[in-house]
């Protein structure tokens, strides 16, 4: 019964954490996972969210066992 949360790049640095494991509870969505994992920090406007390696919106429901990731706009290539 857990959710694994990951932060990348500038978000990882500004929050001071790379990975957090949360307990699972019914009715969680991506926004609620952020709130718990970030200790209530405001989510920057341009933050991107993924569940299990796929882009999702902040209102997407989260299931037990999901890997949820938060990161800034990408700058590869």
């Amino acid at each position, binding site marked *: 019964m857990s959710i694994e949360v990951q932060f*990348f790049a*500038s978000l990882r640095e500004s929050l001071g954490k790379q990975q957090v494991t949360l307990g699972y509870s019914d009715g969680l969505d991506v926004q609620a996972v952020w709130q718990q994992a970030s200790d209530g920090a405001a989510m920057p406007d341009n933050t991107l969210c993924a569940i299990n*390696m796929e882009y999702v919106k902040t209102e997407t429901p989260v299931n037990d066992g999901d890997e949820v*990731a938060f*990161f*800034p706009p990408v*700058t*590869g*290539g």
Partner: protein
Amino acid sequence: MPAILLDTVFNPWDELQSYQEKHLQAGRYGATATFVGTMRDFNIDDSVSHMTLEHYPAMTQNFLDKLCAQSREKFALDDCLIIHRYGDIKPNEPIVLTVAWSAHRAQAFDACRYLMEELKARAPFWKKEITAGGERWVHDELRSSEK
């Protein structure tokens, strides 16, 4: 149609040839379009000494694999190839290679560009530049010179 993530310097042209000789059928493809992105030593005004490219390993691989598969459905391709660096990168080192092989010129050009545009827009990589003035994450507003 692989997407390959590497943390060491690579020669894009040698990789391309090696892949082509191994996987493409001689005489079937007529058009090969490629793009290589190389690290420059300037961006905006500061001189950049080197760069660290962070990624989200499983998602990056997943994203690029799907991008290759989508491109093969969207365009009339014989094959395509993406190679992308991560980790520490120095000026003049290749960062990314995209290749599209097709019987048709327009399809090869369009697919090669599609691979790059999608990769740039959505593949989870983040550049941190190390300059004389310190470290900085590359943000959208710093990328006008890359357009």
